[in-house]
């Protein structure tokens, strides 16, 4: 009875992974090796189940890596790829710069205040993500809240909507909690006696921070960075709404290929490349998590 329960407990997540990760991944991988066609669905080859084994052989023979070659030759895809990594990288850097002081500040507050501040960080999440990004459009647009306010103060307006700056603003805004929370978690449980010991042994408060608090919080910073970098690299909504047509990001490319160009193989190939790139940070994240937990 007990054994059956534990076997079930082990099989369920595997089954879940198989159905919702491995299978879709294989479908996408297969799609990326197909060719486009004016048909429904818009790609060949299609598996002919009636022909059995022979049909399957023909099906496999028709798969090729042509799409990947096409992607590699076209600057657009490479540009979008690099641009995605660059924006995600800059965004992660900004998040670290902003998130660390926020998390540190909260962790130094009295315990009762801490909870309220953590809630304040999480609270925006109770509003729809889309509405919050649309709100940024209303703020940033030429005659928006920001410019109205600047004009009222007699200052020149700024027009950053549909630029990378707006995308970065949106990314930092949307992902800040994912940076703050892991950092806060590690800073909050840090033993205050360690700082006292460092000061006792001759460290100024600043030097105690850099020698003790900071190095001990690095696992939290790594967790936060990966937690933000990975989804940001594939982000679609923020660059689409705040970045206009100028901003190239892979998430947008995938959308365009799928829905505008009906080029499913290209979209799939881009998705596979993005996934392959992100696997490295994802594995790093996993290792980091294991280290923190142990």
């Amino acid at each position, binding site marked *: 009875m007990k054994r059956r329960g534990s076997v079930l407990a082990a099989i369920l997540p595997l089954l879940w992974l198989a159905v919702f990760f491995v299978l879709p991944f294989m479908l996408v991988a297969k799609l990326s090796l197909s060719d486009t066609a004016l048909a429904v669905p818009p790609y060949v080859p299609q598996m002919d189940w009636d022909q059995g084994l022979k049909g399957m052989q023909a099906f496999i023979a028709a798969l090729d890596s042509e799409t990947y070659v096409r992607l590699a030759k076209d600057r657009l895809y490479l540009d979008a790829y690099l641009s995605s990594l660059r924006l995600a990288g800059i965004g992660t850097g900004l998040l670290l710069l902003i998130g660390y002081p926020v998390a540190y500040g909260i962790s130094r507050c009295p315990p009762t205040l801490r909870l309220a501040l953590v809630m304040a960080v999480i609270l925006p999440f109770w509003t729809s993500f889309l509405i919050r990004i649309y709100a940024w459009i209303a703020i940033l647009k030429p005659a928006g809240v920001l410019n109205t306010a600047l004009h009222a103060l007699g200052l020149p307006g700024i027009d950053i909507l549909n630029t990378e700056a707006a995308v970065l603003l949106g990314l930092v805004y949307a992902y800040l909690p994912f940076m703050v929370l892991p950092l806060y978690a590690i800073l909050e449980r840090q*033993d205050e*006696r*360690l700082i*006292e*010991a*460092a*000061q*006792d*042994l*001759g*460290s*100024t*408060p600043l*030097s105690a921070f850099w020698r*003790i608090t900071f*190095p*001990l919080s690095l696992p939290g910073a790594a967790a936060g960075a990966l937690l933000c970098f990975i989804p940001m690299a594939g982000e679609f909504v923020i660059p689409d709404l705040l970045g206009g047509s100028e901003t190239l990001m892979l998430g947008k490319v995938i959308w365009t290929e799928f829905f505008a160009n009906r080029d499913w193989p290209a979209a799939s190939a881009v998705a596979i490349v993005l996934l392959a790139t992100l696997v490295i940070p994802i594995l790093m994240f996993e290792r980091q998590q294991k280290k923190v937990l142990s």
Partner: protein
Amino acid sequence: MNGRPQIGGIRSSFAPWEDLSARPLVRFEGVRKAFGDTVAVKRVDLSIYEREFFALLGPSGCGKTTLMRMLAGFETPDSGQILLGDQDISAEPPHRRPVHMMFQSYALFPHLNVAQNIGFGLRRQGVPKAEITARIEEMLAMVKLEGLGRRRPDQLSGGQQQRVALARALAPRPRILLLDEPMAALDKKLREETQFELMALQQDLGLTFMIVTHDQDEAMVLADRIAVMRDGEIVQIGRPAEVYEAPVDRYVAGFIGDVNLFEGRMESAGSGRMRLHSTDGVFEADGTTPPGDTGWLAIRPEKIAVHSKRPPPGGNQLAGRLLDYGYLGDWTTYLVEIAPGRTVRAARANATRTDEQPLGCDDPVWLTFAPSSAVVLTK
């Protein structure tokens, strides 16, 4: 000196606090500290001398830790002064005080190895690299951890971690080393070993140590002098033997060791003796306190003799029934009922392996004690 009986039967030549010309290393002058409405330290005057092993003893919440943390610089006194040598250090931040602390939790830096932990204070002082390396080796040898310099703190046993914490605090050669419950995390046997090592270390280095502890045995073994604290105040300061044999009040008598108390009216019995009339009998004890008042006679269990036959009349005597006993190997303790609901504790060292008159439960017993063994208390 020779004719007068010495308290505790131990003669020690180290007593700078009795020397009026000696200058204390550390002085607390009228120090007070409150946290909100809670007064942690009420008003403390205290002097600690060079090379002294000083213990702050008291139950948790008595203010002893706050007092130590004020010396380390983690708390600032609300009023009063703390002097190190001639310098008022009350306002100095911890990193500018030549005072180092060994934390109860050790507070070893988990991301640094043993050698880096020990060298931490030296590096902050800007000691040359070669000298740091040499000093780390010296410290590792001193605490018997040679060859473990590259280990991380979490790869060490509790006892080893404690040694690293000690070496780390001693490496920058503090003028006074503060020890906050240093043995609390060690098991009994290791604790006893460590106590003697700590004493030897303090003697060899010629340093001043101040220890905070709630463990009276630890304070007795380690310290040259003990300050017993209660509710933010120092109740008594003295050598371990003085605190034990001549407590100033019932609190100190009861906190350090076991004690039997008899309450009653006191009168003078002449020649430095007091007579106490209590419901349990009339007893005599050495002492010169104002007569006529209510007072207490305190007598330690080991100073009470237990007899299985009625002794000749005279002297301090009590009759009772043996309620219970505990054989501890080196000692046997007796619980004797002298009246319904009234018990007295007695103890005897088992100096011989056999006894011709063994005692059993419910046996009638007689207790005697010498007037010089009892102490008269007025508080």
